[in-house]
C-alpha cells in the first residue's frame, strides 16, 4: 500500500485566502454592527445640534480661557467652525478612540483570545501557514473597522444640511487616517497577543500605548514640553495633524502605513514562534 493510493477527498491543498476572514467577520458581526450603529447615531446627534452652537462665540472664549483642560478632550482651536466642531466632537476623540478600542479588542482576541478559548487550534491544524492565519486576521481587522468609519462619514455628510460644511475630500482623508490608526493599534494588540499568548496582556499593553499616544497628541498644541513628542504619536499622525481641516497629510499617512506594516511583520514572526493549544 502506498500513500498516494489514499488521496484525501479534497480539491485543494490549502485553506482559501478568505476563509478565516469570513469566519472571524461572522463571529464579530454583532460587535461590528453595534459599534457602527452606535457611533453613527452619535455622529448624527453631533451634526444635528451644530446649528445651536454655531453662533455661540462664548464657547470659543471659554476654550481660550483654559486650553489645557480642553486639550485633554481633544478640543483645540475654534469650536464653532465646522472643522473645529467636528474635530472636537468626533474626529479628535470619539471616532479614533472607538476605532482603536474596536481594533484592540479584535487584535487581542483573534490570536491570543482564540488560543486561550481553544478555538484557534482547530484552524491552525488546517492546511494553512501561520503567516496565512495572521494575514487573514489583519484583513478581517481592516474590513471590520470599515462599517463604523463609513457610516460615521455618511452621517457627517448629512451635516451639510445642518450648515456643517466640510470638504468631502478632507472628510475621507480624516476617516482613512482613523482607519489606519485602527490598523496600527489592532496590529499592536495582535503582536502582543501572538508573542505572549495572553489576551489580557494584549489589551492592557495596547490600551496603555494608545492612551499615551492619545494624550501626547491632545496636549501637543498646548503644552510645550510635550509638543516634540507628537511626532511619535500615531494619534497625532491620524487626528492631531488635522486632516479634516488641512486635507490628506502624506507624511502622516506614510508613517501610519509603515508602522502598521512593520507590526504585521512582527506579528507573523511572533505567530511563527508561538505554541498554540
Amino acid at each position, binding site marked *: *500500500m502506498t500513500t498516494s493510493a489514499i488521496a484525501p*477527498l*479534497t*480539491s485543494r491543498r490549502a485553506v482559501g485566502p478568505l476563509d478565516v476572514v*469570513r469566519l472571524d467577520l*461572522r463571529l464579530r458581526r454583532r460587535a461590528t454592527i453595534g459599534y457602527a450603529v452606535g457611533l453613527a447615531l452619535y455622529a448624527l446627534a453631533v451634526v444635528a445640534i451644530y446649528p445651536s452652537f454655531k453662533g455661540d462665540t462664548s464657547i470659543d472664549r471659554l476654550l481660550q480661557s483654559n486650553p489645557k483642560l480642553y486639550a485633554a478632550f481633544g478640543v483645540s482651536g475654534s469650536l464653532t467652525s465646522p472643522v473645529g466642531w467636528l474635530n472636537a466632537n468626533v474626529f479628535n476623540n470619539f471616532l479614533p478612540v472607538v476605532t482603536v478600542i474596536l481594533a484592540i479588542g479584535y487584535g487581542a482576541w483573534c490570536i491570543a483570545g482564540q488560543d486561550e478559548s481553544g*478555538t484557534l487550534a482547530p484552524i491552525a491544524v488546517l*492546511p494553512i501557514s501561520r503567516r496565512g492565519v495572521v494575514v487573514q486576521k489583519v484583513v478581517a481587522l481592516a474590513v471590520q473597522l470599515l462599517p463604523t468609519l463609513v457610516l460615521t462619514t455618511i452621517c457627517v455628510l448629512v451635516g451639510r444640511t445642518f450648515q456643517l460644511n466640510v470638504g468631502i475630500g478632507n472628510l475621507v482623508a480624516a476617516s482613512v487616517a482613523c482607519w489606519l490608526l485602527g490598523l496600527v493599534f489592532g496590529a499592536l494588540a495582535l503582536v502582543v497577543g501572538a508573542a505572549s499568548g495572553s489576551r489580557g496582556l494584549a489589551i492592557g499593553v495596547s490600551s496603555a500605548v494608545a492612551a499615551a499616544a492619545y494624550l501626547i497628541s491632545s496636549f501637543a498644541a498646548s503644552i510645550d514640553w510635550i509638543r516634540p513628542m507628537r511626532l511619535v504619536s500615531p494619534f497625532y499622525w491620524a487626528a492631531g495633524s488635522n486632516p479634516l481641516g488641512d486635507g490628506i497629510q502624506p507624511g502622516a499617512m506614510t508613517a501610519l502605513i509603515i508602522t502598521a506594516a512593520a507590526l504585521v511583520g512582527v506579528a507573523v514572526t511572533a505567530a511563527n514562534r508561538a505554541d*498554540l*493549544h
Partner: protein
Amino acid sequence: MTDPIVTRDLTKTFGRRRGVVGVDLAVNEGEVFGFLGPNGAGKSTTIRLLLGLYRPTAGAVSVLGHRPVVDGVTVRARIGYLPGELTLHPRLTGREHIDWFTRARGLASNVYRDELVERFGAELDQPARALSKGNRQKIGIVLAFMHRPELLILDEPTSGLDPLLQDEFVRLLRETAAEGRTVFLSSHELDEVQRVADRVAIIRDGRIVVVDSVAALRRSAPRTVEFEFARAVDSAAIAALDGVRVLDDDGHRVRLGLSGPLAPLLRLVAELEPVDMTARAADLDELFLTYYRTDYRTDQPDAEVSA
C-alpha cells in the same frame, strides 16, 4: 517509504516545566497505534508537536515524511485531528461549523461527510453552546474524518460518547486502518486502546516507558491470583516475594498481581492453609497500573525510564 510518524529524541520543555523528554516513536502505515498514559503524562504535548502546534525544543519529528513546523501546510492537508476537548464557537451551530470546515478544506465531495453525520447522529441545528460534550465530540469526529485523511491523530476521542457510539467509533477506526490509513490514538483508558490498537506506547512523566504490541504486552502482563483463608493472615510475607504485588487484602481474602514465578508463592501460601484460590489470566489493566504507578522507577531499576 518512511513511516507516517517518526520522532527521534523529541523533547519539549516550557520554561522549566517538563513537556516530553526524548520521545522516540515510529508508527507504521495502516496501523492503529495506541498512545497511553495518565493525565498530564505528555500525550497532548506529543500530539501538538506532531501537528506543528508546538515547536520542538530538541529532537526531530517527521509526519508523512515532512517536518510539521516547516511544511505544515503540506502535512496538515493530509491529517485529521480530533482534540479531546473540542472547543466550538458557542453561537455557531454544528452545521455552520461543518460547512465552514468543508469549505476551508476544499472538500471535493460531501458524501462521506454526510454519511458520518448520519452514522454518529451529529446534532447540526443547535448552537454549540447548547450541545453536550458528547454532541460536540460527534461534530469533532465528522471534522476529523470527513476528508478521508491518510493520518488521523486522535486525542482522547471517545470522551463523552455513550457506549453505543464508542462501539461505532471503534468500527470506524477499524475501517480506516483497513483502508491502509494510519491512526494515532491517544487515551488514558486502556479499554479504549486495547480494542483497536495493534501496538501501544506508554508515556509517563513525559517519557516513553514501553512500546510493544498489545499481544506481547498481554503475554507479559501480570496474572491476578486470589486466595481465601479461614483465619486472618498477614500478607506482608507474601508482598515481600519477587514479582508479587498485593492488590487487595482484608485479612481473609488477599488479591495479588503476579508477574514473577508461581512456585515460591504457592509454597508460601500453602503454609497459611488457604481454603480457596482463583487465578485469572493475564490482566492488561494490572500491567498498565504497574507502568502508571509513581513508584515504578524504584520497583524496576533496570527499566528504561532513567534519564
